[in-house]
Protein backbone atom coordinates (compact mmCIF):
# COMPACT_ATOMS: atom_id res chain seq x y z
CA UNK A 1 0.00 0.00 0.00
CA UNK A 2 1.71 3.18 -1.17
CA UNK A 3 1.96 6.35 0.86
CA UNK A 4 0.13 8.36 -1.78
CA UNK A 5 -2.84 6.07 -1.55
CA UNK A 6 -2.77 5.82 2.25
CA UNK A 7 -2.81 9.57 2.74
CA UNK A 8 -5.54 10.17 0.17
CA UNK A 9 -7.48 7.39 1.78
CA UNK A 10 -7.06 8.82 5.27
CA UNK A 11 -8.30 12.24 4.15
CA UNK A 12 -11.29 10.61 2.50
CA UNK A 13 -11.96 8.82 5.78
CA UNK A 14 -11.69 12.09 7.69
CA UNK A 15 -14.24 13.69 5.38
CA UNK A 16 -16.56 10.75 5.85
CA UNK A 17 -16.14 11.14 9.62
CA UNK A 18 -17.06 14.83 9.36
CA UNK A 19 -20.11 14.05 7.22
CA UNK A 20 -21.18 11.38 9.70
CA UNK A 21 -20.67 13.72 12.66
CA UNK A 22 -22.71 16.36 10.81
CA UNK A 23 -25.61 13.96 11.04
CA UNK A 24 -25.28 13.60 14.80
CA UNK A 25 -25.08 17.30 15.68
CA UNK A 26 -28.04 19.26 16.90
CA UNK A 27 -26.49 22.71 17.08
CA UNK A 28 -25.97 25.03 14.14
CA UNK A 29 -22.61 26.28 15.41
CA UNK A 30 -21.12 22.79 15.56
CA UNK A 31 -22.64 21.90 12.18
CA UNK A 32 -20.92 24.90 10.62
CA UNK A 33 -17.64 24.05 12.36
CA UNK A 34 -17.85 20.47 11.09
CA UNK A 35 -18.59 21.66 7.58
CA UNK A 36 -15.54 23.91 7.77
CA UNK A 37 -13.39 21.01 8.98
CA UNK A 38 -14.69 18.94 6.07
CA UNK A 39 -13.78 21.67 3.59
CA UNK A 40 -10.27 21.99 5.11
CA UNK A 41 -9.78 18.26 4.73
CA UNK A 42 -10.96 18.50 1.14
CA UNK A 43 -8.38 21.25 0.53
CA UNK A 44 -5.64 19.03 1.92
CA UNK A 45 -6.89 16.08 -0.15
CA UNK A 46 -6.90 18.14 -3.34
CA UNK A 47 -3.39 19.45 -2.63
CA UNK A 48 -2.10 15.96 -1.99
CA UNK A 49 -3.75 14.60 -5.14
CA UNK A 50 -2.28 17.48 -7.13
CA UNK A 51 1.16 16.56 -5.82
CA UNK A 52 0.65 12.84 -6.41
CA UNK A 53 -0.83 13.18 -9.91
CA UNK A 54 1.52 16.06 -10.90
CA UNK A 55 -1.40 18.13 -12.09
CA UNK A 56 -1.38 21.88 -11.34
CA UNK A 57 -5.12 22.03 -11.99
CA UNK A 58 -5.73 20.35 -8.69
CA UNK A 59 -3.75 23.05 -6.86
CA UNK A 60 -6.21 25.55 -8.31
CA UNK A 61 -9.07 23.34 -7.12
CA UNK A 62 -7.53 23.30 -3.66
CA UNK A 63 -7.20 27.09 -3.69
CA UNK A 64 -10.82 27.54 -4.76
CA UNK A 65 -11.98 25.04 -2.13
CA UNK A 66 -9.98 26.81 0.55
CA UNK A 67 -11.10 30.34 -0.29
CA UNK A 68 -14.74 29.64 -1.03
CA UNK A 69 -15.72 26.60 1.01
CA UNK A 70 -13.38 26.66 3.98
CA UNK A 71 -13.39 30.43 4.46
CA UNK A 72 -16.13 32.39 2.72
CA UNK A 73 -19.08 30.05 3.15
CA UNK A 74 -18.62 29.25 6.88
CA UNK A 75 -18.13 32.95 7.60
CA UNK A 76 -21.27 33.70 5.60
CA UNK A 77 -23.21 30.99 7.44
CA UNK A 78 -22.07 32.25 10.85
CA UNK A 79 -22.97 35.77 9.82
CA UNK A 80 -26.40 34.53 8.77
CA UNK A 81 -26.97 32.78 12.09
CA UNK A 82 -26.00 35.92 13.99
CA UNK A 83 -27.87 38.30 11.73
CA UNK A 84 -31.11 36.37 11.73
CA UNK A 85 -30.70 35.61 15.43
CA UNK A 86 -31.62 32.01 14.78
CA UNK A 87 -32.47 29.49 17.43
CA UNK A 88 -29.18 27.65 17.61
CA UNK A 89 -30.56 24.18 18.26
CA UNK A 90 -31.92 22.53 15.13
CA UNK A 91 -35.08 20.45 15.18
CA UNK A 92 -34.74 17.00 13.69
CA UNK A 93 -37.40 15.04 11.89
CA UNK A 94 -36.46 11.77 13.57
CA UNK A 95 -34.40 10.72 16.58
CA UNK A 96 -30.68 11.25 15.99
CA UNK A 97 -29.90 7.59 16.64
CA UNK A 98 -32.29 6.47 13.91
CA UNK A 99 -30.83 8.90 11.40
CA UNK A 100 -27.33 7.64 12.22
CA UNK A 101 -28.39 4.07 11.57
CA UNK A 102 -29.90 5.23 8.27
CA UNK A 103 -26.60 6.92 7.51
CA UNK A 104 -24.75 3.68 8.15
CA UNK A 105 -27.17 1.95 5.78
CA UNK A 106 -26.47 4.59 3.12
CA UNK A 107 -22.72 4.00 3.46
CA UNK A 108 -23.42 0.31 2.93
CA UNK A 109 -25.45 1.15 -0.18
CA UNK A 110 -22.62 3.33 -1.51
CA UNK A 111 -20.12 0.52 -1.02
CA UNK A 112 -22.40 -2.07 -2.61
CA UNK A 113 -23.11 0.17 -5.61
CA UNK A 114 -19.56 1.31 -6.28
CA UNK A 115 -17.74 -1.98 -5.97
CA UNK A 116 -19.57 -4.00 -8.68
CA UNK A 117 -19.90 -1.08 -11.13
CA UNK A 118 -16.21 -0.19 -11.11
CA UNK A 119 -14.77 -3.65 -11.58
CA UNK A 120 -12.43 -2.48 -14.35
CA UNK A 121 -11.03 0.53 -12.52
CA UNK A 122 -7.81 0.40 -10.55
CA UNK A 123 -8.58 -1.17 -7.19
CA UNK A 124 -7.21 1.76 -5.22
CA UNK A 125 -9.55 4.38 -6.61
CA UNK A 126 -12.58 2.21 -5.99
CA UNK A 127 -12.58 2.53 -2.24
CA UNK A 128 -12.07 6.28 -2.52
CA UNK A 129 -15.03 6.46 -4.85
CA UNK A 130 -17.12 4.53 -2.33
CA UNK A 131 -16.13 7.04 0.36
CA UNK A 132 -16.97 10.00 -1.88
CA UNK A 133 -20.36 8.54 -2.75
CA UNK A 134 -21.02 7.95 0.96
CA UNK A 135 -20.26 11.61 1.70
CA UNK A 136 -22.69 12.66 -1.04
CA UNK A 137 -25.46 10.40 0.26
CA UNK A 138 -24.89 11.49 3.86
CA UNK A 139 -25.25 15.11 2.74
CA UNK A 140 -28.61 14.23 1.20
CA UNK A 141 -29.62 12.52 4.42
CA UNK A 142 -28.71 15.64 6.43
CA UNK A 143 -30.96 17.65 4.11
CA UNK A 144 -33.76 15.15 4.64
CA UNK A 145 -33.67 14.89 8.42
CA UNK A 146 -33.28 18.56 9.37
CA UNK A 147 -36.17 20.98 9.54
CA UNK A 148 -34.11 24.13 9.64
CA UNK A 149 -33.26 25.75 6.29
CA UNK A 150 -29.68 26.67 7.28
CA UNK A 151 -29.01 23.09 8.36
CA UNK A 152 -30.33 21.91 5.00
CA UNK A 153 -28.00 24.32 3.23
CA UNK A 154 -25.09 22.82 5.17
CA UNK A 155 -26.20 19.35 4.05
CA UNK A 156 -26.26 20.56 0.44
CA UNK A 157 -22.75 22.03 0.75
CA UNK A 158 -21.50 18.78 2.28
CA UNK A 159 -22.93 16.88 -0.68
CA UNK A 160 -20.97 19.12 -3.02
CA UNK A 161 -17.80 18.46 -1.00
CA UNK A 162 -18.31 14.75 -1.66
CA UNK A 163 -18.60 15.41 -5.41
CA UNK A 164 -15.35 17.37 -5.46
CA UNK A 165 -13.65 14.61 -3.46
CA UNK A 166 -14.68 12.11 -6.13
CA UNK A 167 -13.47 14.46 -8.85
CA UNK A 168 -10.03 15.01 -7.30
CA UNK A 169 -9.49 11.28 -6.88
CA UNK A 170 -10.09 10.55 -10.57
CA UNK A 171 -7.22 11.47 -12.90
CA UNK A 172 -8.38 13.33 -15.97
CA UNK A 173 -11.28 15.33 -14.59
CA UNK A 174 -11.20 18.63 -16.48
CA UNK A 175 -10.56 21.70 -14.39
CA UNK A 176 -13.35 23.68 -16.04
CA UNK A 177 -15.92 21.28 -14.60
CA UNK A 178 -14.61 21.74 -11.08
CA UNK A 179 -14.40 25.49 -11.43
CA UNK A 180 -17.97 25.69 -12.67
CA UNK A 181 -19.20 23.45 -9.85
CA UNK A 182 -17.48 25.69 -7.30
CA UNK A 183 -18.94 28.83 -8.80
CA UNK A 184 -22.33 27.15 -8.98
CA UNK A 185 -22.17 26.43 -5.29
CA UNK A 186 -21.28 30.01 -4.51
CA UNK A 187 -24.17 31.24 -6.65
CA UNK A 188 -26.47 28.68 -5.09
CA UNK A 189 -25.43 29.89 -1.66
CA UNK A 190 -26.23 33.50 -2.56
CA UNK A 191 -29.62 32.50 -3.96
CA UNK A 192 -30.36 30.47 -0.84
CA UNK A 193 -29.31 33.45 1.29
CA UNK A 194 -31.83 35.67 -0.45
CA UNK A 195 -34.42 32.92 -0.23
CA UNK A 196 -33.84 32.53 3.51
CA UNK A 197 -34.14 36.26 3.97
CA UNK A 198 -37.52 36.27 2.23
CA UNK A 199 -38.61 33.17 4.14
CA UNK A 200 -37.87 34.88 7.41
CA UNK A 201 -39.66 38.05 6.37
CA UNK A 202 -42.81 36.07 5.70
CA UNK A 203 -42.85 33.46 8.44
CA UNK A 204 -40.54 34.84 11.14
CA UNK A 205 -38.82 31.45 11.20
CA UNK A 206 -36.47 29.36 9.12
CA UNK A 207 -38.23 26.18 10.04
CA UNK A 208 -39.66 24.73 6.87
CA UNK A 209 -42.73 23.54 8.74
CA UNK A 210 -44.20 26.98 7.93
CA UNK A 211 -44.12 26.25 4.22
CA UNK A 212 -45.57 22.80 4.74
CA UNK A 213 -48.68 24.14 6.48
CA UNK A 214 -49.27 26.52 3.58
CA UNK A 215 -48.92 23.66 1.16
CA UNK A 216 -51.43 21.65 3.11
CA UNK A 217 -53.93 24.48 3.01
CA UNK A 218 -53.40 24.71 -0.71
CA UNK A 219 -53.06 28.48 -0.43
Amino acid at each position, binding site marked *: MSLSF*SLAHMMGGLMLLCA*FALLSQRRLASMIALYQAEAFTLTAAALWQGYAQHSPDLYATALITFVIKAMALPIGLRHMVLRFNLIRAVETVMPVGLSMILGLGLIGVAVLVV*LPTTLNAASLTREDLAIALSVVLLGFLVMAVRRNAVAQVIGFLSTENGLVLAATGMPGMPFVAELSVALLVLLGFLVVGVFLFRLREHFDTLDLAGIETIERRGR
Partner: protein
Amino acid sequence: MLLLLARLLATLLHLVLVFALAPLLVGVVARLRARLLGRRGPPVTQPYRLLLRLLNKTALVPETSTELYQIWPFAALSAMAGAAMLVPSFSTGMLTAPLADFITLIGLLSLTRAATLLGGLETGFGFGGAGAARELLFSLFAEAALLVVLASFVLIAHAFNINGIATVFASGHVGISVSLGFALVAMLAVALTETGRIPIDNPAGHLEVAMVHEALLLEYSGRYLALFEYAAMLRLMVWMNIIATVFFPFFMARAGEPLTWPVGLGLWGAKLAVMGVVLPVFEVSMAKMRVFRVPEFLGVAILLGVLAGVFLFVAERIGA
Protein backbone atom coordinates in the same frame (compact mmCIF):
# COMPACT_ATOMS: atom_id res chain seq x y z
CA MET B 1 17.83 -17.84 30.58
CA LEU B 2 19.23 -14.36 30.08
CA LEU B 3 16.27 -13.57 27.85
CA LEU B 4 13.86 -14.65 30.56
CA LEU B 5 15.69 -12.50 33.08
CA ALA B 6 15.48 -9.48 30.81
CA ARG B 7 11.76 -10.02 30.28
CA LEU B 8 11.27 -10.40 34.03
CA LEU B 9 13.16 -7.15 34.64
CA ALA B 10 11.08 -5.33 32.00
CA THR B 11 7.89 -6.62 33.60
CA LEU B 12 8.99 -5.49 37.05
CA LEU B 13 10.01 -2.08 35.72
CA HIS B 14 6.61 -1.79 34.02
CA LEU B 15 4.81 -2.68 37.25
CA VAL B 16 6.80 -0.21 39.36
CA LEU B 17 6.37 2.63 36.86
CA VAL B 18 2.66 2.07 36.22
CA PHE B 19 1.70 1.71 39.86
CA ALA B 20 3.90 4.57 41.03
CA LEU B 21 3.06 7.05 38.29
CA ALA B 22 -0.72 6.56 38.09
CA PRO B 23 -1.48 9.19 40.80
CA LEU B 24 1.06 11.57 39.25
CA LEU B 25 -0.74 11.34 35.89
CA VAL B 26 -4.05 12.25 37.53
CA GLY B 27 -2.30 15.10 39.35
CA VAL B 28 -0.78 16.47 36.15
CA VAL B 29 -4.11 16.35 34.33
CA ALA B 30 -5.91 18.08 37.22
CA ARG B 31 -3.21 20.75 37.46
CA LEU B 32 -3.21 21.48 33.72
CA ARG B 33 -6.96 21.65 33.70
CA ALA B 34 -6.95 24.17 36.53
CA ARG B 35 -4.30 26.25 34.72
CA LEU B 36 -6.39 26.23 31.55
CA LEU B 37 -9.35 27.47 33.55
CA GLY B 38 -7.24 30.31 34.93
CA ARG B 39 -6.78 28.87 38.40
CA ARG B 40 -3.50 27.93 40.05
CA GLY B 41 -4.57 24.35 40.66
CA PRO B 42 -3.40 21.75 43.17
CA PRO B 43 0.24 20.61 43.10
CA VAL B 44 0.84 17.58 40.90
CA THR B 45 1.56 15.47 43.99
CA GLN B 46 -1.92 16.12 45.40
CA PRO B 47 -3.26 12.60 44.56
CA TYR B 48 -0.41 11.03 46.58
CA ARG B 49 -1.27 13.27 49.53
CA LEU B 50 -4.94 12.37 49.15
CA LEU B 51 -4.13 8.66 49.30
CA LEU B 52 -1.84 9.14 52.32
CA ARG B 53 -4.42 11.22 54.15
CA LEU B 54 -7.18 8.70 53.48
CA LEU B 55 -4.97 5.83 54.65
CA ASN B 56 -4.41 7.57 58.00
CA LYS B 57 -8.08 8.22 58.62
CA THR B 58 -10.51 5.97 60.45
CA ALA B 59 -12.77 4.02 58.15
CA LEU B 60 -16.42 4.20 59.10
CA VAL B 61 -18.75 1.35 58.19
CA PRO B 62 -22.43 2.30 57.84
CA GLU B 63 -24.81 0.36 60.08
CA THR B 64 -27.10 -0.59 57.21
CA SER B 65 -24.38 -2.26 55.16
CA THR B 66 -23.61 -5.97 54.97
CA GLU B 67 -20.32 -7.76 55.59
CA LEU B 68 -19.48 -7.43 51.91
CA TYR B 69 -19.07 -3.66 52.31
CA GLN B 70 -15.38 -4.10 53.16
CA ILE B 71 -14.74 -6.51 50.31
CA TRP B 72 -15.78 -4.36 47.33
CA PRO B 73 -12.85 -1.90 47.51
CA PHE B 74 -10.38 -4.78 47.49
CA ALA B 75 -12.21 -6.51 44.63
CA ALA B 76 -12.27 -3.32 42.57
CA LEU B 77 -8.61 -2.53 43.13
CA SER B 78 -7.36 -6.06 42.53
CA ALA B 79 -9.22 -6.39 39.22
CA MET B 80 -7.90 -3.00 38.11
CA ALA B 81 -4.39 -3.92 39.22
CA GLY B 82 -4.65 -7.09 37.13
CA ALA B 83 -5.59 -4.99 34.12
CA ALA B 84 -2.68 -2.63 34.81
CA MET B 85 -0.29 -5.57 34.84
CA LEU B 86 -1.54 -6.89 31.50
CA VAL B 87 -1.55 -3.75 29.39
CA PRO B 88 1.96 -3.09 28.04
CA SER B 89 3.44 0.32 28.77
CA PHE B 90 6.89 0.87 27.30
CA SER B 91 7.69 -2.53 25.85
CA THR B 92 6.07 -5.48 24.16
CA GLY B 93 6.77 -9.08 25.02
CA MET B 94 6.66 -8.83 28.81
CA LEU B 95 6.10 -11.91 30.91
CA THR B 96 2.41 -11.04 31.24
CA ALA B 97 2.04 -10.77 27.45
CA PRO B 98 0.51 -14.23 26.81
CA LEU B 99 -2.25 -13.43 29.33
CA ALA B 100 -3.07 -10.00 27.91
CA ASP B 101 -6.08 -11.14 25.94
CA PHE B 102 -8.36 -8.27 24.98
CA ILE B 103 -11.43 -10.14 26.20
CA THR B 104 -9.76 -10.78 29.55
CA LEU B 105 -8.96 -7.11 29.76
CA ILE B 106 -12.56 -6.10 29.09
CA GLY B 107 -13.61 -8.64 31.72
CA LEU B 108 -11.23 -7.21 34.32
CA LEU B 109 -12.42 -3.66 33.64
CA SER B 110 -16.04 -4.79 33.99
CA LEU B 111 -15.19 -6.61 37.19
CA THR B 112 -13.84 -3.36 38.64
CA ARG B 113 -16.97 -1.58 37.59
CA ALA B 114 -19.21 -4.30 39.03
CA ALA B 115 -17.42 -4.14 42.39
CA THR B 116 -17.71 -0.34 42.48
CA LEU B 117 -21.41 -0.55 41.58
CA LEU B 118 -22.16 -3.09 44.27
CA GLY B 119 -20.21 -0.99 46.75
CA GLY B 120 -22.38 1.97 45.83
CA LEU B 121 -25.57 -0.06 46.29
CA GLU B 122 -24.34 -1.55 49.57
CA THR B 123 -25.83 1.03 51.93
CA GLY B 124 -29.16 1.30 50.11
CA PHE B 125 -28.57 5.01 49.88
CA GLY B 126 -30.32 7.01 47.13
CA PHE B 127 -27.39 8.67 45.38
CA GLY B 128 -25.47 5.42 45.23
CA GLY B 129 -28.39 3.77 43.47
CA ALA B 130 -28.77 6.63 41.01
CA GLY B 131 -25.05 6.60 40.28
CA ALA B 132 -25.11 2.83 39.79
CA ALA B 133 -28.02 3.08 37.35
CA ARG B 134 -26.19 5.68 35.28
CA GLU B 135 -22.90 3.85 35.34
CA LEU B 136 -24.64 0.68 34.16
CA LEU B 137 -26.43 2.54 31.37
CA PHE B 138 -23.13 3.98 30.14
CA SER B 139 -21.20 0.75 30.46
CA LEU B 140 -23.80 -1.15 28.44
CA PHE B 141 -23.11 1.04 25.42
CA ALA B 142 -19.40 1.47 26.09
CA GLU B 143 -18.76 -2.26 26.21
CA ALA B 144 -20.79 -2.85 23.05
CA ALA B 145 -18.67 -0.24 21.27
CA LEU B 146 -15.48 -1.75 22.63
CA LEU B 147 -16.42 -5.23 21.38
CA VAL B 148 -17.30 -3.91 17.91
CA VAL B 149 -13.97 -2.07 17.72
CA LEU B 150 -12.19 -5.17 18.94
CA ALA B 151 -13.74 -7.11 16.05
CA SER B 152 -12.01 -4.85 13.54
CA PHE B 153 -8.68 -5.16 15.40
CA VAL B 154 -8.95 -8.92 15.17
CA LEU B 155 -9.77 -8.70 11.47
CA ILE B 156 -6.70 -6.56 10.82
CA ALA B 157 -4.15 -8.11 13.13
CA HIS B 158 -5.49 -11.67 13.37
CA ALA B 159 -4.71 -11.55 17.10
CA PHE B 160 -6.85 -11.27 20.21
CA ASN B 161 -3.91 -10.37 22.35
CA ILE B 162 -3.19 -6.68 22.97
CA ASN B 163 0.51 -7.49 22.79
CA GLY B 164 0.06 -9.28 19.47
CA ILE B 165 -2.07 -6.45 18.06
CA ALA B 166 0.65 -3.96 19.03
CA THR B 167 3.36 -6.07 17.39
CA VAL B 168 1.40 -6.37 14.13
CA PHE B 169 0.50 -2.68 14.03
CA ALA B 170 4.09 -1.66 14.82
CA SER B 171 5.43 -3.66 11.88
CA GLY B 172 3.95 -1.06 9.53
CA HIS B 173 2.34 -3.52 7.14
CA VAL B 174 -1.08 -2.24 8.10
CA GLY B 175 -0.57 1.30 6.79
CA ILE B 176 -2.90 4.17 7.50
CA SER B 177 -6.31 2.70 7.10
CA VAL B 178 -9.66 4.43 7.32
CA SER B 179 -10.91 1.64 9.54
CA LEU B 180 -8.23 2.31 12.13
CA GLY B 181 -9.12 6.00 12.15
CA PHE B 182 -12.75 5.18 12.88
CA ALA B 183 -11.68 2.66 15.50
CA LEU B 184 -9.50 5.30 17.18
CA VAL B 185 -12.37 7.77 17.44
CA ALA B 186 -14.69 5.08 18.80
CA MET B 187 -12.02 3.95 21.27
CA LEU B 188 -11.46 7.51 22.52
CA ALA B 189 -15.20 7.91 23.14
CA VAL B 190 -15.23 4.67 25.13
CA ALA B 191 -12.11 5.71 27.06
CA LEU B 192 -13.67 9.05 28.02
CA THR B 193 -16.76 7.22 29.27
CA GLU B 194 -14.86 4.57 31.19
CA THR B 195 -12.54 7.02 32.90
CA GLY B 196 -15.42 9.37 33.67
CA ARG B 197 -13.96 12.46 32.00
CA ILE B 198 -15.84 15.55 31.05
CA PRO B 199 -18.43 15.11 28.36
CA ILE B 200 -19.71 12.13 30.34
CA ASP B 201 -18.96 12.79 33.98
CA ASN B 202 -17.17 15.60 35.77
CA PRO B 203 -14.19 14.28 37.76
CA ALA B 204 -14.02 17.52 39.75
CA GLY B 205 -17.76 17.69 40.37
CA HIS B 206 -19.27 17.39 43.79
CA LEU B 207 -22.88 18.12 42.97
CA GLU B 208 -24.81 15.04 43.97
CA VAL B 209 -27.42 15.05 41.22
CA ALA B 210 -24.88 15.35 38.42
CA MET B 211 -22.20 12.92 39.43
CA VAL B 212 -21.80 9.30 38.51
CA HIS B 213 -18.56 7.84 39.77
CA GLU B 214 -18.33 10.02 42.88
CA ALA B 215 -21.90 9.19 43.86
CA LEU B 216 -21.01 5.53 44.18
CA LEU B 217 -18.24 6.27 46.67
CA LEU B 218 -20.12 8.74 48.86
CA GLU B 219 -20.53 6.32 51.75
CA TYR B 220 -16.93 5.12 51.73
CA SER B 221 -14.26 6.65 53.90
CA GLY B 222 -10.71 6.13 55.10
CA ARG B 223 -8.65 3.32 53.64
CA TYR B 224 -11.61 1.86 51.72
CA LEU B 225 -12.07 5.12 49.86
CA ALA B 226 -8.30 5.24 49.27
CA LEU B 227 -8.52 1.87 47.51
CA PHE B 228 -11.35 3.05 45.26
CA GLU B 229 -9.54 6.30 44.50
CA TYR B 230 -6.36 4.46 43.63
CA ALA B 231 -8.32 2.10 41.36
CA ALA B 232 -9.75 5.15 39.57
CA MET B 233 -6.23 6.60 39.12
CA LEU B 234 -4.98 3.29 37.74
CA ARG B 235 -7.92 3.22 35.36
CA LEU B 236 -6.83 6.46 33.66
CA MET B 237 -3.31 5.04 33.34
CA VAL B 238 -4.60 1.73 31.95
CA TRP B 239 -6.75 3.43 29.30
CA MET B 240 -3.96 5.72 28.21
CA ASN B 241 -1.70 2.69 27.94
CA ILE B 242 -4.28 0.78 25.88
CA ILE B 243 -4.64 3.63 23.40
CA ALA B 244 -0.89 4.28 23.24
CA THR B 245 -0.10 0.59 22.74
CA VAL B 246 -2.72 -0.19 20.14
CA PHE B 247 -2.65 2.97 18.01
CA PHE B 248 0.91 4.25 18.48
CA PRO B 249 3.03 1.13 19.02
CA PHE B 250 5.89 2.38 16.83
CA PHE B 251 9.40 2.00 18.28
CA MET B 252 8.13 0.37 21.45
CA ALA B 253 10.91 -1.46 23.25
CA ARG B 254 11.18 -5.24 23.14
CA ALA B 255 11.40 -6.76 26.58
CA GLY B 256 14.06 -9.28 25.55
CA GLU B 257 16.48 -6.59 24.35
CA PRO B 258 17.42 -4.19 27.17
CA LEU B 259 19.18 -1.86 24.73
CA THR B 260 15.81 -0.85 23.27
CA TRP B 261 14.40 0.05 26.67
CA PRO B 262 15.58 3.67 26.94
CA VAL B 263 13.94 4.60 23.62
CA GLY B 264 10.77 2.77 24.62
CA LEU B 265 10.69 4.44 28.03
CA GLY B 266 11.27 7.88 26.55
CA LEU B 267 8.55 7.38 23.96
CA TRP B 268 6.14 6.07 26.56
CA GLY B 269 6.75 9.18 28.65
CA ALA B 270 6.21 11.35 25.59
CA LYS B 271 2.98 9.56 24.69
CA LEU B 272 1.63 9.95 28.23
CA ALA B 273 2.68 13.62 28.25
CA VAL B 274 0.89 14.29 24.95
CA MET B 275 -2.28 12.56 26.12
CA GLY B 276 -2.00 14.26 29.50
CA VAL B 277 -2.04 17.63 27.71
CA VAL B 278 -4.68 16.78 25.11
CA LEU B 279 -7.14 15.44 27.70
CA PRO B 280 -7.47 18.65 29.80
CA VAL B 281 -7.53 20.82 26.66
CA PHE B 282 -10.37 18.68 25.33
CA GLU B 283 -12.11 18.77 28.70
CA VAL B 284 -12.12 22.54 29.10
CA SER B 285 -13.36 23.01 25.55
CA MET B 286 -16.36 20.72 26.05
CA ALA B 287 -19.52 20.99 28.10
CA LYS B 288 -20.76 18.09 30.15
CA MET B 289 -23.49 16.15 28.40
CA ARG B 290 -26.91 15.45 29.80
CA VAL B 291 -27.11 11.90 31.09
CA PHE B 292 -29.59 10.84 28.43
CA ARG B 293 -27.40 12.18 25.65
CA VAL B 294 -24.59 9.81 26.64
CA PRO B 295 -26.13 6.71 25.01
CA GLU B 296 -26.39 8.76 21.81
CA PHE B 297 -22.70 9.72 22.07
CA LEU B 298 -21.75 6.10 22.62
CA GLY B 299 -24.15 5.05 19.87
CA VAL B 300 -22.00 7.10 17.51
CA ALA B 301 -18.99 5.17 18.82
CA ILE B 302 -20.73 1.85 18.13
CA LEU B 303 -21.67 2.93 14.61
CA LEU B 304 -18.10 4.08 13.94
CA GLY B 305 -16.90 0.68 15.09
CA VAL B 306 -19.34 -0.96 12.67
CA LEU B 307 -18.17 1.39 9.93
CA ALA B 308 -14.57 0.36 10.60
CA GLY B 309 -15.61 -3.25 10.11
CA VAL B 310 -17.52 -2.43 6.89
CA PHE B 311 -14.48 -0.76 5.35
CA LEU B 312 -12.30 -3.67 6.36
CA PHE B 313 -14.53 -6.00 4.39
CA VAL B 314 -14.43 -3.60 1.46
CA ALA B 315 -10.63 -3.55 1.58
CA GLU B 316 -10.61 -7.34 1.76
CA ARG B 317 -12.85 -7.72 -1.27
CA ILE B 318 -11.00 -5.34 -3.54
CA GLY B 319 -7.66 -6.61 -2.32
CA ALA B 320 -6.25 -3.20 -1.45
